[in-house]
């Protein structure tokens, strides 16, 4: 079976499972089921984006939670002012997702552009540390925003509005998030296989070779970093709407670490693996927190075992296999 077939097959199986899951959960009468699925899909969007740069570019960003938080905060803050009847720089505001969401993504893109430009001057461990440092800056800025709740975060009075889709309907919201995830995975898949993606992956495999083929590394890495930031920001936007609540916790290094753990858990450089990773991680978290609040005591060893013996995560070996010549 070729690599392409395995990707398509896995993708279709996952999609079918995610489409029917809400009906299955509804049958059981468990009210926590649909919110759990929604969280999985939102996290999946973030970790697929992170996998794009870690798995394909070896750009280990330890600060991606900052984009998650900025996406959420832009939406929540603008909605807050709109609902207070304020004007924002003379603009009366709106609650429309079609305006607010692109604005939030634009903010993430700009933040990604600036931070990526600075961070990509470094490599390896320095890159990890500098992205972490920037994320901590974002975190402390959010904490210091007393007007927007500081430490306590900011409530949203209601979800954004979208023509034709009632975001307050949990089913509709879930399927919207799922639809966006599908589009994003397809987009990332195109990128990976594109002319751009070939250069980007070449840079990871041998930077010296790529440079001596005429490639200037920075613009390629920066473009991928910004795309990844936007995807993670979109997850943040959805999270703000899902929880109707944003807090600085969205930007903590622990959140960034969670994203990285999920990517590794699912399988680096596979795009689909991290989705399975998100389902496993958040599913386990849900189950284990029912059992004990110290759920990390159990989750930690599971992650260690998968890192030691899985080597390529849950789906890495399967998705990357099938190419022996």
């Amino acid at each position, binding site marked *: 079976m070729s690599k392409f077939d395995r990707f398509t097959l896995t993708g279709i199986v996952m999609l079918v499972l995610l489409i029917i899951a809400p009906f299955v959960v509804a049958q059981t009468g468990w009210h926590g089921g649909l919110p759990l699925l929604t969280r999985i899909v939102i996290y999946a969007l973030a970790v697929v984006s992170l996998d794009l740069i870690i798995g394909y570019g070896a750009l280990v960003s330890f600060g991606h939670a900052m984009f998650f938080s900025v996406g959420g905060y832009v939406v929540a803050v603008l909605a807050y002012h709109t609902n207070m009847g304020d004007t924002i720089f003379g603009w009366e505001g709106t609650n429309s997702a079609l305006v607010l969401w692109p604005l939030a993504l634009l903010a993430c893109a700009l933040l990604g552009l600036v931070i990526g430009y600075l961070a990509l001057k470094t490599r390896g461990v320095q890159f990890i540390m500098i992205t972490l440092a920037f994320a901590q800056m974002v975190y402390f800025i959010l904490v210091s925003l007393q007007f927007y709740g500081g430490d306590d975060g900011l409530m949203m009075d209601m979800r954004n509005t979208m023509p034709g889709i009632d975001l307050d309907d949990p089913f509709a919201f879930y399927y919207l998030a799922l639809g966006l995830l599908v589009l994003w995975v397809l987009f990332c898949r195109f990128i990976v296989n594109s002319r751009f993606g*070939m250069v980007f992956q070449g840079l990871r*495999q041998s930077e010296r070779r790529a440079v001596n083929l005429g490639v*200037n590394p920075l613009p390629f890495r920066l473009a991928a970093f910004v795309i990844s930031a936007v995807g993670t920001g979109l997850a943040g936007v959805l999270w703000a709407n899902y929880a109707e609540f944003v807090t600085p916790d969205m930007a903590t290094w622990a959140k960034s670490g969670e994203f990285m753990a999920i990517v590794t858990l699912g399988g680096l450089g596979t795009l689909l693996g991290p989705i399975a990773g998100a389902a496993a991680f958040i599913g386990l978290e849900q189950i284990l927190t029912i059992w004990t609040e110290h759920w990390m005591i159990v989750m930690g060893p599971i992650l260690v075992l998968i890192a030691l013996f899985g080597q390529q995560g849950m789906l890495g070996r399967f998705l990357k296999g099938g190419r022996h010549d």
Partner: protein
Amino acid sequence: MTDGAAIKTGEAVLALDHLHKAFGALKVTDDVTLDVRSGEIHALIGPNGAGKSTLIAQICGELRSDSGRVHFKGRDLTDLSAFKRARLGLGRSFQTTQLCLEFSVLEHVILSLDCMEGGSFNLFANPRNDAALREEAVHWIGKAGLAGRENRQVANLAHGERRQLELAVALARKPHVLVLDEPMAGMGAEESARMVDLLQELKGEYPMLLVEHDMDAVFTLADRVSVLVYGRIIFTGTVDEVRQDAEVRSAYLGDETC
């Protein structure tokens, strides 16, 4: 320095003009002036630690020279970064192969072709599906003697085949000069002979600066030879002149009698 009558006297394609490089007190490149002319293979020999790899790094733009200029096709490259020099047609191979191990041979050459202008930001077109690119890549793979290996993953190639792929990757870009850093290093006798044949075929088409330890290969291939010792060029001349020169023998060719 002498230029023998046997040399095809083309014009200089690559010219190094009084290059210097020092790491602290250590002079690694000490006033190096040499040129590579169209149609010729100019071999650069010298003992380990003579500064050959440093000199190549200076030529290709990976290391900044302390002083001196690098001219390429009449253009001053000295202040250009490595990727800009590559785009101008400076092709190279590395002492230890530098290849993208996860790509197939075909993909790697396609990448090379697609980066002629520095690479594309097209996020949707898959270069693997471009018939013209594939066809051209297959041509260069064949030229480097790797026909039939197109779909093999680079990581699964034998050492000698990787060397050939380095050559294919460089040739695909239609370079105006080839800088080859020990293309025979680590090869068995058979692989080595195949590489010599290959370079012999390419001779005349591409001017080459050939750094090599294998003296048989140097004497077979080269038109001119320069000898680098402690960062200085102590001799430049034809193959015959090098053979006869006493200083070269004592410095490099292992003549223990003096």
